[in-house]
């Protein structure tokens, strides 16, 4: 077993919002300014800590970094294990960043201020926990723990139909993920059959999968079942067609900050789940599932776009556009090509930025005109020129205009799907990307329609003398736009640090046992195109021993060293040729 490391930087990142929530709960309700200030301070603090994490992050490797291990429930193999890699790095930053924006925006809240900000902060910990956990049960715990604060936010501060929306959101996501829990326990059982030790350790499980010791004999027949148990939970969370119906309701009823977080981060927990668990742990089943998942992704892209186009409600339109955009993410990931998987992962970030910004703008608009229906809008451009300009940029980034971030992600995802289709990987053909490509055009159609209906046309006589955005609000939106432009002009800033980790995830899925990279092991080297550079032969016999597993992501993995000189994880099992 790996030596306990104690709590470190990542735990600090998880603890900061939680401490913030406690602090907020102890401030009396009447000091609402103090509550808001404290919430903002702790949100900023969390953001600062995540930036420190980013600075310590070593982009040249696909391994888990900053790993922490604290024993918890020994007899069941459940432990506190957290770590970060390229896949989760940007999601962590996106989460803390969007949280600052959400808290900033929420300063207008006057109803039950204390509870509101406590919920926002608890939600932040839960979301970060999902991205950082390296233990299946810990992952599940955070995955589920995010439900309650979000449901409560919809419940207390939501719109008119909030009861229905909150219950639907809760029931849908919980019902899907309880099967994941059963699947997780089954995985721990399989780990025991392979090694004699019960363990929920993700790194250890993945090492067993990569070595080809976990999926043998009878277990192999279980693999598709377990894959779908996990995939269902993530598909509902994404959400993919036909499990998307909770999303429009939840978005429409949630308060604006809730919508921003929901679209920006919560949905990513689904796609992240595929990258972190479903692909690396169930490679064969995932490859078999490619046609099904890709079909659903394509249907989701088209269906989301068509339904969005006919919505009378601007918030619902943005919600359905999320279904379509997340379809692109899944399309990229399940193309299982390097470009596709990078594009899918990048599109996650873009969606978080641009849809988050869209919800923010819709929220700002709602504050002024108290309606979300297109029928009550029109001709706002003359009254709110700054607002219109910002809205245009954000909308175009969501459309996927070259030069803005959405283009890069969608382009890469589609390119990956084309590559896979041309090569006929996993039963794919050219129809998948071809139909999905139509979705890009449809996105332009409905989003431009939306812009037209809101800002042009006859002025609604009820909407006169509207105030344009205040400087603070402009700053808030501009921050998001800054990243949208940055991501479109120089995407390498964002893509480079995650490329290796994504390449490793892809090879974990498409390669055969023995040729798969291992998070806890550096026998395989991957270059920046996601290809295997070289395989160092393992020491004979190192497969069958428990000692291989005992290397649970050594703490020194994050030490930046040249590939040649990188110390093999764990002295006892050094197997790299010098």
């Amino acid at each position: 077993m790996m030596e306990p490391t104690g709590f470190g930087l990542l735990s600090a990142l998880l603890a900061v919002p939680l401490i913030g929530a406690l602090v907020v709960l102890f401030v009396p309700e009447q000091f609402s300014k103090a509550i808001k200030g404290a919430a903002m301070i702790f949100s900023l603090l969390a953001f600062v800590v995540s930036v420190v994490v980013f600075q310590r992050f070593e982009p040249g490797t696909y391994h888990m970094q900053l790993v922490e291990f604290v024993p918890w429930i020994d007899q069941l193999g459940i432990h506190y294990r957290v770590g970060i890699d390229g896949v989760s790095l940007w999601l962590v930053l996106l989460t803390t960043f969007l949280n600052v924006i959400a808290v900033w925006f929420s300063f207008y809240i006057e109803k039950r201020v204390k509870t509101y900000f406590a919920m926002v902060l608890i939600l932040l910990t839960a979301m970060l926990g999902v991205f950082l956990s390296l233990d299946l049960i810990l992952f599940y715990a955070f995955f589920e723990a995010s439900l309650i604060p979000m449901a409560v936010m919809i419940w207390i501060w939501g719109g008119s139909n909030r009861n229905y929306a909150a219950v639907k959101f809760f029931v849908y996501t919980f019902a899907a993920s309880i099967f994941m829990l059963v699947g997780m326990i089954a995985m721990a059982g399989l780990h025991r059959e392979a090694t004699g030790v019960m363990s929920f350790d993700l790194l250890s499980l993945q090492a067993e999968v990569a070595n080809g010791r976990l999926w043998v004999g009878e277990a192999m027949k279980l693999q598709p079942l377990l894959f779908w148990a996990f995939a269902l939970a993530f598909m509902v969370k994404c959400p993919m067609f036909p499990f998307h119906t909770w999303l429009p309701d939840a978005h429409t009823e949630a308060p604006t900050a809730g919508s921003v977080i929901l679209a920006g981060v919560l949905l990513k927990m689904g796609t992240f789940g595929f990258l972190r668990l479903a692909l690396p742990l169930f490679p064969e089943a995932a490859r078999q599932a490619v046609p099904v998942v890709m079909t659903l992704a394509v249907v989701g892209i088209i269906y989301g776009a068509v339904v969005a186009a006919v919505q009378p409600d601007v918030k619902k339109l943005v919600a359905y556009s999320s279904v379509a955009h997340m379809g692109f993410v899944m399309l990229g990931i399940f193309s299982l090509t390097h470009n596709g998987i990078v594009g899918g992962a990048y599109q996650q970030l873009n969606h978080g930025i641009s849809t988050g910004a869209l919800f923010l703008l819709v929220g700002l608009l709602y504050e002024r005109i108290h309606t979300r229906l297109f029928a009550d809008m029109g001709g706002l451009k003359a009254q709110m020129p700054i607002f219109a300009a910002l809205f245009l940029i954000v909308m175009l980034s969501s459309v996927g205009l070259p030069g803005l971030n959405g283009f890069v992600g969608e382009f890469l995802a589609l390119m990956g799907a084309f590559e896979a289709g041309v090569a006929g990987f996993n039963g794919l053909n050219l129809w998948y990307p071809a139909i999905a490509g139509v979705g890009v055009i449809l996105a332009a159609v409905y989003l431009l329609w939306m812009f037209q209906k809101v800002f042009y046309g006859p002025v609604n006589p009820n909407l006169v003398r509207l105030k344009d955005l205040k400087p603070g609000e402009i700053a808030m939106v501009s921050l998001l736009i800054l990243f949208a432009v940055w991501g479109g002009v120089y995407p390498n800033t964002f893509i480079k640090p995650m490329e290796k980790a994504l390449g490793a995830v892809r090879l974990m899925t498409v390669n055969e046992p023995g040729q798969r990279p291992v998070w806890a092991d550096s026998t395989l080297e991957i270059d920046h195109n996601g290809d295997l550079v070289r395989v160092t032969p393992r020491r004979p016999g190192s497969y069958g021993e428990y000692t291989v597993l005992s290397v649970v992501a050594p703490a020194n993995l994050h030490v930046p060293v040249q590939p040649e000189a990188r110390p093999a994880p764990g002295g006892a099992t050094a197997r790299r040729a010098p």
Partner: protein
Amino acid sequence: MIREQPIPTIDWLTLAPMTTVVVAGLVALFIEMFRPKQSNGPIVTVSVVGLALAGALTLAQFGMEPGPTFAGMMVRDQVGLVLQLLLIGVCLLTFLFSDPYLREKKIAFAEFYQLALWSTAGGMIMVSTTNMLMLFLGLEVLSIALYCMAGMDRKQAKSQESAIKYFLLGAFASAFLLMGIAYIYGPTGSLDLGGIAMIAAMPESGYLTMAVFGVGMLLVGLMFKAALVPFHQWAPDVYQGAPTNVTAFMAAASKVAAIGALARVLSASGALQEFWLPALFWVAIATMVVGNFAALVQKDVKRTLGYSSIANAGYVLVALLAHVKKPDQVPLTTALFFLVVYCLMTVGSFAVVSLAAKGGEEGTRFQDLHGLWKRAPFAVGCLIVFVASLIGIPPTAGFFAKLFIFQDALSTGLVPLAIVLAVTSAVSVYYYLGIIQATFVSDEGARKTVSANPSFGLNLVCLFCALAVLVVSLAAAPVSQWLRGSTQLPGEAQARSELQLDSGGRVGAR
């Protein structure tokens, strides 16, 4: 000629906790005669002190040499001690919020306290004996007090109905239990549960059929008390009709006692499991399905929680079956852990629901909870924790309770039970959320039955239960370690202890 009998070794300490509780009840009865009018303060004080003393006496016995005493009439072991402590705790928590509730409902008879104390004592006897007659005695002491308590709200027809229904069906179930005892006593001449194994060891004796029948009838009697389907019909009606504090006590205490006794009967008749394991398999499935689906359509919070307690009995039965199927691999810890958590969240949520009583009226329909969030935010905050735990959402203890059951079920090959448990848990989310939802709805136009200020005692109970639910979750490892102590029931082969899970979770040597 008088047969020479060895003088039985008597360990008075084993009996001390129950005696203390009974005596506390008697003292409270005397106090009632001399107390100032309408003041239950002294009675509550005496009861609480008695319970605390009994709890201390129980705690003192942990770690002592386990074994039978009183010529095998009583037994001291880890399971019994844990469950006794749990029963005492349930009684104590119920008392803390009972007084204001009873006054609010204008049924401030002090008898509640004595009856609850004696009922607790009955439950404590039930969980710490392997003698069938003692088992019956404990069950009757527990039940008869409960019958009276259920009917305490004399002016309400619902409460009377509840008492009569409980009494009639309960008497019927007791008859089954007695008949079962007779069937086993007949061929063996022994009142000890060990007699079952004796018969099973000699199949050629021809008494096997009798033993199977006997065990079946014992199980029916106990399944009735634990409200397992198809012996559950009384539970929702009785829970609804009884005063809410009684419901809290009943839902927790009688379930703990019945499950404890059930565990002993099941372990003792492990040799006959080929006969009843398939039956109990279906009972568990039916209980989880019926409990959860019936709860979906209820309009009364107490009925909903009643069906939820049926469903929870199904969950714990899964844990028991897993233990009985492979006692060497799966200790009884899971069931104990679940019961502890179940008691905390059940008592806690009924305590919050008891807020919906005012001016002699009971308002427990969902719409009566409207606006509770505004008037008692702390209690509702705690209710959210209890409901999250009932659903099984981390980081509450209910999550680990269910996780351990999943674990046991999967590792003993009871996969269908694990799947049904998962599906029905998913279903349960809907009605559990309904309870929370009701408290969030604004109360404009609703009948305002909710009392304005939750009492200090009630807040204390909520705080304790909510904190415990969270702490037990974070400390799941030490807690289950402590519960494990020695969760093998006597009668199971001692040699198996070598095969028990070691601290690394490994089974035996590889």
